[in-house]
C-alpha cells in the first residue's frame, strides 16, 4: 500500500463536503446517495487500514520541524475505524431524519468536513497538523449547531468559546513541550511530567478532556442537546469527540508523558474523572427532556474513561479506552433512538411521552439494550469496561474513586429507568397522536449499535484482544498480566457483586420515586431532586451558577470593563483633556505677553538676544 493513501481519509470526505456545498439544495436524492456511498467507502477504508496498521507518510510543510506527518499504527487505525463507522451510521440515519430540514447543503458539508478533520487529527504524527485538524473541527461543530434553529447560535458560540479555550491551552502546552524536547513529532516525545513539563501536561490534558466533554468544559453539551439536530449530538459529542479526546488523553498519558501510578498528575486525572462522573449524573437524573438527560450522561461517562486512564494501571487504562468505544456505541444509539422518537412524535419531553413500546418496538428494543449497557448490566459491554475501571480504581488504593464510580453507576441506572419508563412503558400518553415505527434507515443504525453492545459484552474477547490490549504493548511492565478477558464477565467477585448491588439499589430508588410521584415515571427522580440540601444545589445549578461558560463570560466582561475604564480611557483622557489643556494654557500665556505695547516687545527681543548669546557662548566654550 502506498503511503499516500493515508491522505484519502482526509481528502475524500473534504472533497465530498465541497461537492455537497455545491449541489443545489433541491437535489436531495443524489446528495443522500453520494453521502451514503462516500461514507461506505470510508468505512471500507477504515477496515483496510485496520488490517494494514502500519503506514506513514511525511512531507515538509512549514519547515523548522513542522512537517505534514501522518502515521497509521494500531491505535490510530482503531480510532479511525470507529470514526468511519459512526460516520456511516449517522449518514444513513440522516437520509431520513434530516431530509426535510432547511440548510441541508450545509448539513452534509459540515458532517463530512468534521469527518475529514477528525480523521486528520487521529492520523497526524506531528503536533501542528494535529492541532490544525483538531481546531478545524470546532468550526464545523459551530456550523452544525447553528443549523438547529433561530436561537441555536448562542449555543454554537458557547461550544466554540469553550472548545477554543481548550485548544488554546493545548497550543500553549504543545509550545512548552516543543521548547523542552525540540521536536513536534508525536512518536518521538516521551518525557516525565515534572517542573514546567507538568504545566505542559495539564494544558494538553485540558485540550483532550475539553474535547471529550469532561467537567468543567462540558456545559455546551446539554444546551446543544436541545438546540442542535439530534443526529449531530449522536455523531459529535456522543461518539466522535469522545474518540478523539480520549485517544489524545491516552496518548498524553501513555506516550508523551510517563504517567506514574498515584503521581500528582495521575491523581489530578482521577479527581477530574470522579467529579465528572458524580456531578454530571446528578444533573442527568433530574432532567425532564430526553435529549438533555442523555447529554448529561455523555458528560458523566467521560468521567469513567478519564478515571480509568488516570489510574495508570493497565487494567484501568484498558478499561478507560474500552469504555470510550463502548460509550460511543451506546450513547450514539441512545441519541439516535431519542431522535427516532422525536421523528415520529415531534417531542422529547418526558412529561408528554409514554407507552410507546408497542408502536415503536424496534426503537424501544434498541434503546433498552443501549440503556442497559450504559448502566453496566451484565453481560453487556458497559458492564465489562466499568468493571475494569472499578478494578483499576481499587488497585490504586484510593477507595474514594471507586466509591464515586459506583455512586455514578447507581444514578445512571436510576435515570435510565426513569427515561425508559417515561417514554416507552407506562400508560400511553394522550399528548401525542398514534405513531408508527420509524423507517428503516433510522432504525437500522440503532439496531446495529445495540447489536454491537451485545457483541462487545458477551464476546468481549474480540474487542479486547483485537483493539484494546495491543494499545498497551510496550507500556505495561514486562510480565504484567494483560489478558483482561478471563474475568471480564465474572460476577462472583466482590467488585462485581458491589456493582450489581448498585443496580438493585437504583431499581429500588426508582420504584420508590415512582410510587411517591403518583406512579408517574418522570417524577421518579423527585425524591433526590427535593432532598434537603441537594435541592438548593440543584436550584443553583439550574440557574447556571456552576456553568464555567457563564462565569467565564462574566469574568471576561468585567475584566474588559476594568481594562477599558481603568487604562484605555485614562490614557485617552491625557491626550483629549490633558494635552489640549496644556496647549490652551500656553496659548493664554503667550497671548498675554502680546499686549500691544512697543516697550514690551522690545524687552522680549532683548531678552531673547541675551539668551541666544548665552547659548552660543556656552557652546563655543566661554
Amino acid at each position: 500500500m502506498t503511503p499516500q493513501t493515508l491522505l484519502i481519509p482526509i481528502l475524500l470526505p473534504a472533497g465530498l463536503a465541497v461537492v455537497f456545498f455545491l449541489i443545489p439544495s433541491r437535489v436531495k436524492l443524489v446528495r443522500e446517495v453520494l453521502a451514503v456511498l462516500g461514507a461506505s467507502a470510508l468505512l471500507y477504508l477504515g477496515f483496510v487500514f485496520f488490517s494494514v496498521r502500519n503506514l506513514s507518510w511525511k512531507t515538509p510543510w512549514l519547515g523548522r520541524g513542522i512537517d505534514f506527518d501522518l502515521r497509521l499504527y494500531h491505535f490510530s487505525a482503531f480510532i479511525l475505524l470507529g470514526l468511519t463507522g459512526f460516520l456511516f451510521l449517522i449518514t444513513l440515519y440522516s437520509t431520513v431524519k434530516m431530509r426535510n430540514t432547511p440548510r441541508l447543503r450545509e448539513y452534509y458539508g459540515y458532517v463530512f468536513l468534521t469527518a475529514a478533520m477528525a480523521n486528520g487529527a487521529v492520523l497526524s504524527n506531528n503536533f501542528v497538523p494535529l492541532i490544525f485538524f483538531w481546531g478545524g473541527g470546532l468550526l464545523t461543530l459551530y456550523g452544525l449547531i447553528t443549523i438547529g434553529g433561530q436561537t441555536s447560535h448562542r449555543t454554537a458560540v458557547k461550544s466554540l468559546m469553550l472548545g477554543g479555550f481548550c485548544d488554546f491551552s493545548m497550543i500553549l502546552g504543545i509550545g512548552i513541550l516543543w521548547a523542552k524536547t525540540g521536536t513536534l513529532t508525536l512518536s518521538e516525545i516521551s518525557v516525565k511530567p515534572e517542573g514546567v513539563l507538568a504545566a505542559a501536561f495539564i494544558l494538553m490534558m485540558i485540550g483532550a478532556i475539553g474535547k471529550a466533554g469532561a467537567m468543567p468544559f462540558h456545559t455546551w453539551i446539554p444546551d446543544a442537546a436541545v438546540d442542535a439536530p439530534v443526529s449531530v449530538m449522536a455523531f459529535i459529542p456522543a461518539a466522535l469527540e469522545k474518540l478523539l479526546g480520549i485517544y489524545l488523553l491516552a496518548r498524553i498519558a501513555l506516550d508523551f508523558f510517563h504517567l506514574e501510578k498515584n503521581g500528582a498528575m495521575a491523581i489530578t486525572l482521577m479527581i477530574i474523572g470522579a467529579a465528572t462522573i458524580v456531578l454530571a449524573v446528578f444533573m442527568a437524573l433530574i432532567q425532564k427532556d430526553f435529549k438533555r438527560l442523555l447529554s448529561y450522561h455523555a458528560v458523566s461517562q467521560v468521567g469513567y474513561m478519564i478515571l480509568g486512564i488516570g489510574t495508570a494501571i493497565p487494567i484501568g487504562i484498558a478499561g478507560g479506552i474500552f469504555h470510550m468505544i463502548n460509550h460511543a456505541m451506546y450513547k450514539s444509539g441512545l441519541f439516535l433512538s431519542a431522535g427516532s422518537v422525536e421523528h415520529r412524535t415531534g417531542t422529547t419531553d418526558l412529561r408528554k411521552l409514554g407507552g410507546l413500546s408497542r408502536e415503536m418496538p424496534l426503537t424501544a428494543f434498541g434503546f433498552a439494550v443501549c440503556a442497559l449497557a450504559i448502566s453496566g448490566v451484565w453481560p453487556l459491554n458497559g458492564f465489562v469496561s466499568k468493571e475494569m475501571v472499578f478494578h483499576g480504581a481499587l488497585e490504586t488504593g484510593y477507595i474514594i474513586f471507586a466509591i464515586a464510580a459506583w455512586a455514578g453507576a447507581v444514578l445512571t441506572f436510576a435515570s435510565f429507568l426513569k427515561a425508559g419508563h417515561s417514554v416507552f412503558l407506562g400508560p400511553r400518553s394522550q399528548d401525542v397522536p398514534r405513531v408508527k415505527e420509524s423507517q428503516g434507515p433510522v432504525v437500522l443504525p440503532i439496531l446495529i449499535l445495540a447489536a454491537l453492545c451485545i457483541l462487545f459484552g458477551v464476546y468481549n474477547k474480540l474487542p479486547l484482544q483485537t483493539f484494546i490490549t495491543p494499545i498497551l504493548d510496550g507500556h505495561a511492565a514486562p510480565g504484567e498480566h494483560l489478558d483482561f478477558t478471563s474475568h471480564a464477565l465474572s460476577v462472583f467477585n466482590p467488585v462485581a457483586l458491589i456493582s450489581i448491588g448498585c443496580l438493585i439499589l437504583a431499581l429500588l430508588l426508582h420504584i420508590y420515586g415512582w410510587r411517591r410521584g403518583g406512579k408517574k415515571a418522570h417524577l421518579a427522580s423527585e425524591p433526590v431532586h427535593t432532598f434537603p440540601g441537594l435541592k438548593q444545589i440543584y436550584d443553583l445549578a439550574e440557574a447556571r451558577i456552576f456553568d464555567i461558560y457563564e462565569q467565564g463570560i462574566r469574568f471576561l466582561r468585567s475584566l474588559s470593563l476594568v481594562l477599558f475604564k481603568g487604562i484605555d480611557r485614562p490614557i485617552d483622557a491625557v491626550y483629549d483633556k490633558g494635552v489640549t489643556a496644556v496647549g490652551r494654557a500656553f496659548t493664554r500665556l503667550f497671548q498675554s505677553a502680546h499686549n500691544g505695547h512697543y516697550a514690551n516687545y522690545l524687552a522680549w527681543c532683548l531678552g531673547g538676544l541675551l539668551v541666544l548669546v548665552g547659548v552660543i557662548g556656552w557652546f563655543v566654550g566661554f
Partner: protein
Amino acid sequence: MNIKLIALLTVFIPVLGSLTIPLAGRISRQARSVWSVLLGAVTAALPLLLLPFALSGKQDIAVRTLILGLDFKLIIDPLSVFMSIVSSFVGFLIIVYSLGYIAHERHQDEYYLMVLLFIGSMMGLVFSANLVFMYVFWEIIGICCWRLIGFYREKDHVLKADKAFLMTFFGAAVMLLGFILIYNQTGTFDLTAMRGTLISGTAVLFILLGMFSKSTTMPLHTWLPDAGVAPTTVTALLHAAVLVKIGVYAFARLFLFTFSLPAGWRDALPIFVVVSSLVAAGAATVENDFKRILAYSTISQIGYIFLGFSVYTPDGISGSLLFILMHGLAKAGLFLCAGIVIHATHKRDIREMGGLIKTMPVTAVAFLACAFSVIGLPPFGGFFSKLLVITGTVKAGQVWVAAVALFTAVLTMFYLLKVFSKVFLGEATETAPEKTRGMVFVVALLAVLSLLSGLLVAYPMKLVETATTSIIWWNP
C-alpha cells in the same frame, strides 16, 4: 527588467502617478477611476516581479546619489519584498472596493490622490535603506492619513484627524531625535552600514515611541479608534495595508535587521506589547461601535506582531511576518464587510443591527471567515501566524507572556463572535441588501484568501522563512 529598476518603479509610479490623478479627473470620472485602478494594479504587480529574487534569499541595493552626500538608497531583500507585496496587494483591493463605496462622495480627486500617494510612500518606506528617507516617507504617510481621516470634512472629523496627525507626528518627531542620536554614534544614516551596531537605550526609547505611535500600541494608541470617522475604505487601508504596519515593519527593519538592542529592552518589550494587546482586546469587548471594535481589534493584533518580533526567536519572527499578511487580508475583509453594512444601514452601533445574514449572506459569511482568521482558528491563515508567535514566545522562555497572549485570543474570539451574532444573526431589524457587486466581490475574495492562505500556507511561508533567515544576523 533589472531588479533595481523594478524597485525604483514600485516606489515612483504610485508616488508620481498619484499627482496625475486630478488631471485624469479633469477628463472624466470614468478616466479617473480607470487611471487610479491601473496605477494601483501596477503598484501591486511590480513587487511580484521581485519575488523570484527574494525567494533566492539575496539582497540588492539600488543607489542614486543626491546632494549633501545623501544617498537615495533602496534595499531589496526578502523582508522588503514581502512587505511591499502584502501592502500593495491589499491596497489595490481597497482601491477596487472604493469605486463603489466612494462613488457618491465629493472630492474624489483628492481621495484617490491621497490613497495612491499613501500606498506609494509605503513602498518608499519599505524599500528605504536610509533613515532620512524612511523618515520622509513616514511623514508623507502621516499627512495623507490626516487628509483622509478628515475626508468628510465635518468639524468633529477634522478634530479626530488632527488628533491622529498630532499623535503620530509627536511619535515621528521623537523618532527623528532617535535617528539623530544614532547618527551621532555611527556617523551615517545608511542602514546597511550599521548592521549589528549596539544602540543606546535612549535611542531605542525614542524610536520605539515613533513606532508605537504609528502602529498604535499603548500608550500611543487612542487615535486609531477615533480615526474610524474616516470612510471605511480609508480605515481598512490604515488598518490592514499601510499605516499601522509601518511601525512593525520599522521594528523588523531597524531593531531586528539592523541594530542590536540593550538586553533590558529585549526583556521588557514582550511585556509592554502583550499588555497593550490585552488592554485593547478588553476595550474592543466593551465598545459597541462597529468600527471602533475593529479598530481596537487591530491594536490588539498589532501587539501580537510586535510580540513575535520582540522575542528574537526565528519562530516568533516568522510568525509575525506571516501575521502581517494574514492580518492584512483578514482585517481588510472585516472592515470592508463593516463598510457594506454601514453603507446599507447607515448605522454604526451593533446593538441596533440584527439578522443581516438573510439579506447579506455573502458579507456575513465573509465576515465570519475573516473573524476566524483574526481569532486564529484553523484552517484559516491566522491560525499559523498566531501559533508561530506563541511557540516563538514560549521558546524564548516567556511562558507567561504567551499565556496572556492566548488569553487575549480567547477575548478576541468573544468579541468578534459577539459582533457577528449581533449584526448578522438574531431578529432582522430591517432589510438592507448587499449593493455594489464590486464591493461584495472584494470581501468574498478576501475571505477566500484568508482560507487559502491557511490551506496553502506553505507558499507564503517559503518567502517568510527566507525573510527570517535574511533578517537574523545574530545567533538565536
